[in-house]
Every structure is written in C-alpha cells, then in structure tokens.
C-alpha cells in the first residue's frame, strides 16, 4: 500500500487546493440529500403509533448527535496524528472541525430537549445520555477555549490535541450509555440486534439525513481547513499565488 497520498496531504499548498476542489463534491450532494430527507421525514413518513408527529424531531436530532460524536472522534484521531508525526495539517483539521462539532452538539441538546418536553414531560433530566452529551459540549468549548488561550499556534495545537485525545473516552460512554445504564433516553433507533427498528418509510429519510449531515460536515470543514492552512503559512510563495497578491 502506498502512503504517497497521506504525505502529499501534509503539504499545505496541496491540502489547500485539494480542499477547494473537493468542497462542491460534498456541498451539492449534502444539499440534495438533506432536502430529500426533509421531504421524506416531514411529509412522506407516517406518524409514529406512540409518539405521533413529535418523533419527526428525530430526523434532525439523531444526525446532529451522530455529527457531535463523529466530529470529536475525527478531532481526537487528527490530534493524535498531529502529536505523533508533528503534522501541521492534522492539527489544522482538528481546529477546523471543533466549532462545527460544538454547534451540532448544542443542536443535539436543544432538539433533544424539545423532544423531551412532550415525550417525557421535561426539557432536561440528569440522565446518563443527556449528561454525557452535555459533557461533550463542554469538552468542545474547553478545546476551543484552550486554543484561544495561546498566542503561539504550535503550542495551541499541541495542548489542545492532548485534550482532544483524552476527551475521546467520553464518545463510547455517550454511545453505550443507553445500554450500560437505565436511561430515560430510548435505546438504539436505527439498528437493534442487527435489525432496523422502524419501517423503510421512516428509516430511509433518516439514512438520507445521516448521509446528508455527514457530507455537510465534509463541505464546511474543507472551507474552514483552507482558512486554517492559510493562517499557518507565513511567507510561502504558494500563498501569494492563491490570494492573488
């Protein structure tokens, strides 16, 4: 297996240009998938026999929750790569991803609360799933706060990467919290014991939203990554070519 592509990604000009070229390939499919998911989730899917139409919140809540976990895991892996191989591009990726993950974690908490009120009778419970997701939000804030506290970008990269790597322990805790503890939050929604828990008319829009949100993250992180790469480059000739000086 050749690792040439991996080494080329470490080159800032290559990374900057690749990110720019890839962005539309993520953005347009994301827009179409999310639109299809919204139509399917809001119009075509039938009401749930227990939760009525309130369950439709799931079409934005579950993909947001997925992003909150996936983005933090990407940050931890990128942080580890940055620490081990001293790869600036990996640190740039982690820094670019953090605000996106934080905002979708907040969206998860808010949409979950809006689901909780009609279903559980309360906006908030100190339940294992909710509490560990709130902790994830604070981890994101801590990561971004730590980065902002250092003027030296290289120190900010290293210190925040350590927090990302240590904090990733919370990701499996969130995911398995509904299995390990007696939680108010419902169990796995998409698959349980290897079988889907809902009919295709409900499941397909949800899968479209999961894919759409993932591609949306890809498009946004690529744009942010271009900014992060530029901020890390000082007097490079390629920057002159790119920004048209």
């Amino acid at each position: 297996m050749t690792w040439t592509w991996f080494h080329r990604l470490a080159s800032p000009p290559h990374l900057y240009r690749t990110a720019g070229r890839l962005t539309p390939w993520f953005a347009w499919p994301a827009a179409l998938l999310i639109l299809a998911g919204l139509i399917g989730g809001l119009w075509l899917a039938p009401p749930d026999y227990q939760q009525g139409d309130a369950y439709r919140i799931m079409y934005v809540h579950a993909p947001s929750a997925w992003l909150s976990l996936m983005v933090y895991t990407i940050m931890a892996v990128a942080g580890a790569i940055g620490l081990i191989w001293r790869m600036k591009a990996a640190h740039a990726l982690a820094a670019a991803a953090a605000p996106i993950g934080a905002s979708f974690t907040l969206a998860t908490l808010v949409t979950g609360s809006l689901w909780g009120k009609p279903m559980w009778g309360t906006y908030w419970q100190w339940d294992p799933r909710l509490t560990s997701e709130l902790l994830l939000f604070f981890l994101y804030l801590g990561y971004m706060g730590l980065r902002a506290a250092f003027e030296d970008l290289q120190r900010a990269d290293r210190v925040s990467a350590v927090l990302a790597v240590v904090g990733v322990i919370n990701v499996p805790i969130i995911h398995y919290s509904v299995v390990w503890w007696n939680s108010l939050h419902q169990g796995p929604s998409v698959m349980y014991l290897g079988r889907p828990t809902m009919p295709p008319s409900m499941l397909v829009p949800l899968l479209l939203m999961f894919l759409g949100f993932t591609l949306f993250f890809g498009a946004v992180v690529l744009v942010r990554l271009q900014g992060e790469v530029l901020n890390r480059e000082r007097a490079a000739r390629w920057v002159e070519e790119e920004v048209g000086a």
Partner: protein
Amino acid sequence: MMRFLDMGGYYPWVWPAYAVTLGVMGLNIYWAKRLRERARRAALRRLQTQEEP
C-alpha cells in the same frame, strides 16, 4: 396544509427543533466562509508588508 403545520399538535416542539438545526447549518456556512475570507485578507496583508522595503 394546516394539518401539516399543526404536526398533530406537536408544532411548538417540532418546528423550533427544525429551525434550530437549520439555523446551526446556516451559521456554519457563514462562519466557515468568514474564516477563510479573513485568513485570505490576513495573508494578503502579510505579503504586502513583506514587499515594502
């Protein structure tokens, strides 16, 4: 149409949930473009400073 907007009586929770999520998506697009634009302008300023004797 009214039945759709009513969401079986759950409209006070369903529509705000969608508004918050789509709002977060819109903000992410805006923040990402702003970050890239600011980085470009800062890079341009640095290059211009370096060119001056």
